[in-house]
């Protein structure tokens, strides 16, 4: 057994850190400050990505290309995808909540490498600004977030190179974060705390970080080769120089399929924290949850070619990847059944946090079902690269990860700020988002099956009405951010005072003041060996134990 004493603190550097609001603009080493920096920064980029999405949906209200020039459309689409993935979902579900929560969960006073942590965050704003500014320099990249050559080699080079540079920076940030999480979870655990006693989010972040560390370097290598092809006219992926375009796709998806789990596994972890607290029941099936996460990590590494079923893949490869992909549904399914079992028989408070979490369950189940269908080669051949796929992954990434981010904000905002969010406005936000989301993306399944390819600015006029319906849903989604923004800003001044533990939760971040002091707890870190010990009577005893331990 390894017992590590939690690090005391960075006393010397602390004096150099600005206090109050300004610390969020500083090179702070406090994991909580860094977590909030990730969250707010990610949200600002989300607003940019959302504006770009609105531009796409406006263009698609009519079957002809009339709202913006065609090449601008492709730039908008590329920026939208890249921003949403690399600047919003990945940094927020990993960086924001991971940094804020993981040290609490393992009973440490900070992350293992606080300086690396700050560096990882401060790579993001310049990378993001660089990416967006490429639009004003010479036009942004226009080959989609997948940047398939030879298109990415033949479109204007400046935008593509800036795109590569910023994705490399963001990938680097992600790797630094991953290393930090692995070290923190494995090495900084409070003495007496065993791995199988950790809150589920720790397991999710451990699995995710393994994926990050194994696969992101492959993306980096691939993009560096691609940049050689662009600036030095090498021929790795350039067919006119004897290169092979399919090799790029294998390398790209070797990262980018795991990347979809990098976006969703942490969300699975967050939901596993939120559901038990608000339904006053233990998390159902802890052990199977842990094994499912590890099974997903392993399978996630060997399914990448399901993105390439029409790329000229030989039959044996098509079959292998069909089977491997289909089987991911089994561990994923276990997690969903466990969550429903957690709700079952509980005393559920129908607040915004639980509504967004349940919205996530419903949306993700639909996305998972279409995913298994897409894994079947004969099915995929027809709908690959159509709006059906767009619908699938938005059900996963928006209906899944983004719903969980909102749920988590409703759940942890009291801890972050010491004040509660307004429940009524939260529910309006949920209803608008849920209705808008489904209205926007459900019809896209039909569009894809009936002949509308993805990434187009113009389409067959028979699809006009359904596209307008989808755009109307997008409008509702855009409007839904307004009550949310108002709520978050207004409540930070006027919200009800939350107190230490408004949800009566057992996990360690709630056993300290809101917001917590610099070193997380004034006294020693509490030892929580059963983070899900809810349930009749038992709760009160647990709570008393913890209280007496604190004294």
């Amino acid at each position, binding site marked *: 057994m390894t017992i590590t004493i939690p690090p005391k603190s960075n006393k010397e550097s602390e004096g150099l850190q600005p206090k109050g609001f300004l610390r969020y603009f500083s090179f702070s080493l406090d994991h909580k400050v860094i977590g909030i920096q990730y969250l707010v920064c990610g949200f600002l980029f989300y607003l940019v990505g959302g504006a770009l999405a609105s531009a796409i949906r406006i263009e698609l209200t009519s079957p002809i290309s009339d709202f913006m*020039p*065609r090449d601008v459309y*492709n730039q908008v689409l590329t920026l939208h995808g890249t921003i949403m993935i690399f600047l919003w979902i990945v940094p927020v579900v990993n960086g924001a909540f991971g940094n804020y929560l993981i040290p609490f969960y393992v009973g440490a006073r900070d992350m293992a490498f606080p300086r690396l942590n700050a560096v990882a965050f401060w790579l993001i704003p310049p990378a993001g600004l660089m990416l967006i500014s490429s639009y004003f320099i010479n036009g942004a990249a*226009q080959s989609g977030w997948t940047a*398939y050559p*030879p298109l990415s080699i033949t479109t204007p080079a400046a935008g593509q190179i800036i795109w590569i540079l910023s994705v490399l920076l963001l990938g680097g940030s992600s790797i630094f974060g991953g290393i930090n999480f692995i070290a923190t979870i494995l090495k900084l655990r409070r003495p007496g705390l065993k791995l199988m006693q950790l809150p589920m989010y720790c397991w999710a972040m451990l699995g995710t970080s393994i994926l990050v560390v194994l696969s992101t370097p492959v993306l980096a290598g691939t993009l560096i080769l691609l940049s050689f092809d662009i600036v030095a006219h090498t021929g790795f992926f350039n*067919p*006119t120089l004897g*290169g*092979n*375009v399919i090799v790029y796709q294998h390398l790209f998806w070797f990262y980018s399929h795991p990347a979809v789990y990098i976006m969703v596994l942490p969300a699975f972890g967050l939901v596993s924290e939120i559901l038990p607290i608000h*339904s006053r*029941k233990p998390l*159902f*099936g802890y*052990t199977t949850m842990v094994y499912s996460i590890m099974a997903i990590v392993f399978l996630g590494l060997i399914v990448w070619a399901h993105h390439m079923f*029409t*790329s*000229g893949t*030989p039959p044996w490869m*098509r*079959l292998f990847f*069909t089977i491997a992909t289909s089987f991911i549904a*089994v561990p994923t*399914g*276990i997690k969903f*059944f466990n969550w429903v*079992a957690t*709700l*079952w*028989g*509980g*005393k*559920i408070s129908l607040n915004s946090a639980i509504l967004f979490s*349940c919205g996530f369950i*419903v949306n993700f189940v*639909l996305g998972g*079902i279409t995913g*298994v269908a897409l894994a*079947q*080669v*004969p*099915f995929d*051949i*027809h709908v*690959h*690269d159509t709006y059906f796929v767009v619908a699938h992954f938005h059900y996963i990434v928006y209906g899944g990860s983004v719903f969980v981010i909102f749920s988590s904000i409703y759940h942890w905002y009291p801890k972050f700020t010491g004040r509660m969010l307004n429940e009524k406005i939260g529910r309006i936000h949920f209803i608008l988002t849920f209705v808008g989301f489904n209205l926007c993306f459900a019809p896209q399944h039909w569009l894809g*099956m*009936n*002949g509308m*390819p993805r*990434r*187009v*600015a*113009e389409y067959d006029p028979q699809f006009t009405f359904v596209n307008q319906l989808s755009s109307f849903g997008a409008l509702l989604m855009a409007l839904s951010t307004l009550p949310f923004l108002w709520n978050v800003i207004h409540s930070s001044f006027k919200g009800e005072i939350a107190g230490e533990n408004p949800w009566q939760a057992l996990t360690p971040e709630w056993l300290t003041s809101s917001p917590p002091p610099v070193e997380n707890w004034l006294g020693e870190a509490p030892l929580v060996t059963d983070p899900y010990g*809810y*349930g*009749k009577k*038992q*709760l009160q005893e647990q709570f008393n134990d913890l209280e007496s331990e604190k004294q």
Partner: protein
Amino acid sequence: MLKPSAIITLLVSISLAVGGVWIIYNINLLPEAASSNAPVYDELFRVLFVIGVILFVGMFAAVVYSLIEFRRRPGDQEDGLPVKENLPLEIFWTAVPAIVVLFVGLYSYDIYDRMGGMQPLDHQNHGYSVSSSEEKVWGGIGTSSNNSNMDLQMQSLPVEVTAMQFAFLFRYPKGDFISGELHVPVGQTISMRMESNDVIHAFWVPEFRIKQDVIPGQPTILNFTPTKPGRFPIICAELCGPYHGGMRSTVVVEEPEIYQDWFNKNSNTIVS
């Protein structure tokens, strides 16, 4: 014993379930089926759709039911039951999805085989040589094995497809001419050899349920047999540049005589 009301409820729910399955099995969400591939595809789609709807409705109902039934009543400060696990239940919901997924996998393999996916691609192309030994030809699907009966199968019609920003060109090697529209006779197996001049494109005909990327530097093969006369869109499905959305063409499926007239009019060689 069961009460009559319970029996009625049971019967009603069973008939609702059966009726529901029948309805979703017969909803047609796909475009016209115009190739020998398409009915096979639609069969797969229906089966996946039924399984998917049952799973989704089940999960949705479970979540909504829990939220309503187990919501906290005002004044209730108690916790829920401290149930942490239930091994038989967990084994059950591991095994059932595993079996469903296994079934789906085997079934879709069968469908894929019936579409000709497992047949060596150069086999039925005795009309002309597809793969010289040094050339690797990958991907695509073969003819449907429904009509791979050698006696009945007509020799397949070879077409060479070239894709470029932002058009498809169809060369008929037998007549040595190039067309901007793909004309094919109904009921005849077409064997296309496709290559791109610049970036990656994809050849997609929704009514045929087939798609294959057209790749620079690496030819791909796509075989299909149209079964209905008509004009169907050919759509580029891989982002290929600013005019990608406008990169379309038409496949004209005609009765053999009409096709032959069209072919003779365009042909540059003397047809035997």
